[in-house]
């Protein structure tokens, strides 16, 4: 990357973050909430891109990490007397990391399709546990809680307004993007990409492929858990549905629609998916997944690089 590229990257990054930061000041409440949701789902999609796009592992189990982030935050907010924001984040991340470690330990023994199926089945294990363990998780009814204030407890705490909540989410997502970008460009990220390109050769060079995969799954799971924590803070609600397979499926759809292996693509994909859902549900009400599924299949077949890859190729022409 040349110096000029670096500068244009930072300028672009600053412009986009500034635009997103200004969004809640000009948008009506519905769309403000919509943009915040896009950022949260975008973070989830981005975390999954670390596996799909950079390591070549399709995870169909991200709902487990996301859901455990939601429930971890919920537990911290319900159990500790004055609800503490940082404790909620810490517990959410710890829960997601624990589950990710567990899933990673087993699923990384397998490759390709087997990895996808195993992650899917593991996420369903957690769904069944959360759904049936009513006394702890609220089962079908889920859990409700109140969002803590922002600040240092005991010293200075402000209540979240929808606008500051948006800024908080934006700050976390932007920071996560920078961290993930750094990871993918680090020597560690290079090894992941080598695994994606040729696992056998990477092993032959002397890298311990399984260790790298386990760390990749755990990192990805932690960021998915962070998205879950943000979702819990935004909606003050935890439900078993967040652990259900559909969330994982949608995460994969965001990635494919936006363009895998780009980090920005999944966020674009999440925005595209949610906008499309909004538009389609005007016509198809709750059956919006019929046309959306058709569009998704068409994109898998005709636009394998996703929106971002398609745009890039089109611009370069």
């Amino acid at each position, binding site marked *: 990357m040349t110096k000029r590229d670096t500068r244009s990257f930072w300028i672009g990054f600053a412009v986009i973050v500034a635009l997103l930061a200004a969004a809640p000041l000009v948008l009506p409440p519905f769309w403000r909430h919509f943009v915040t949701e896009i950022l949260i789902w975008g973070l989830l999609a981005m975390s999954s891109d670390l596996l799909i796009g950079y390591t070549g592992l399709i995870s169909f189990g991200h709902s487990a990490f996301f859901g455990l982030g939601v429930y971890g935050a919920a537990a911290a907010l319900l159990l500790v007397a004055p609800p503490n924001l940082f404790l909620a984040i810490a517990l959410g991340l710890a829960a997601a990391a624990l589950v990710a470690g567990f899933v990673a330990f087993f699923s990384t023994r397998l*490759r*390709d*399709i087997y990895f996808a199926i195993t992650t899917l089945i593991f996420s369903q294990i957690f769904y069944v546990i959360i759904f049936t363990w009513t006394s702890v998780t609220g089962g079908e009814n889920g859990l409700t809680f109140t969002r803590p204030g922002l600040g240092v407890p005991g010293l200075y705490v402000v209540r979240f307004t929808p606008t500051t909540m948006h800024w908080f989410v934006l700050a976390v997502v932007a920071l996560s993007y920078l961290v993930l970008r750094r990871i993918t460009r680090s020597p560690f990220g290079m090894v992941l990409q080598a695994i994606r390109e040729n696992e056998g050769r990477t092993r032959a060079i002397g890298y311990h492929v399984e260790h790298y995969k386990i760390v990749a799954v755990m990192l990805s799971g932690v960021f998915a858990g962070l998205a879950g924590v943000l979702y819990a803070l935004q909606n003050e609600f935890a439900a078993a549905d967040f652990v259900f397979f559909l969330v994982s499926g949608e995460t994969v759809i965001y990635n494919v629609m936006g363009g895998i292996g780009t980090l920005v693509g999944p966020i674009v994909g999440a925005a595209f998916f949610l906008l499309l859902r909004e538009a389609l549900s005007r016509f198809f009400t709750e059956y919006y997944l*019929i046309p959306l599924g058709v569009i998704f299949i068409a994109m898998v077949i005709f636009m394998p690089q996703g929106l971002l890859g398609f745009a890039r190729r089109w611009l370069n022409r």
Partner: protein
Amino acid sequence: MAIPWDLIVVQTVNGIVTGMILALVASGLTLIFGIMDVVNFAHGELFMLGAYIGVLVLASTGSFLLALTTASLVVALIGAALQIVTLRPLIGRDPLTTILATFGASLVLQNYALWQFGPISRKIAEPVSGQFHLLYLEYPWYRLVIAVASAAIIGAFWLFLKFGRYGIWIRATTQDRVMAQAMGIPVPWVHTGVFAIGAAMAAASGVLFGPLVGVEPYMGLPWVLKAFIVVVVGGMGSFGGSIAAAIFVSLLESYASIWVSPSQAIIVSFVVLILTLLFRPTGLFGSASR
């Protein structure tokens, strides 16, 4: 705790019955995977569509046998269309893209069923209503009919693979796609045919199983999940392995549901999967390398 022998006998029968249905679902999945390297995410939806078509035909004609054959044929056609439209363009690409395409198809089919038939579950009347004494229980004959019918379909298919002209084409394509093509076998059509056969098997199991639970748009997912478990435990692509694993897993689940609720009993099959992955990642019964 005393061992409830009577319950164990009943649950053994139950386990074998669900195991045979599961074997029918899983062997369609294994077949499609073994030959085309395609993991068919839409398999559960084909199962569900079969059950719905069974409901419709049964309501209008009253013949269960006709419902079974019509559902299988119609879903076979749907499967063939699905393969031609969504999977054929993906030949030669990363096999992972086929998961995505069939996942999209499953969303479309599931929501189509929801739109067309609504969320309320429908009943298929049991074609055989008699019961017999099993210890202190009145056990419905129909459950045994299911097991026998599933075994018959699987057996017939096995014979077809072994001795039928097109069965030999299918096996040849599994062994060596390029060589089969060179020998004049129309490989793309074998793929379409195999997908159609797998779809028909899913549909047949849907119709057979319908009377036990009721038919609703989301009925496919638990089955396809269990079928995935069975296929991994049995050794991916191994036909006999997936049948053995289906019965094994179903038996364990039936025994577990003596003590815990059925929705928690599914955790037993998850545990079997985890243990298999730990100690024998190639599957309990298969020898295929992965």
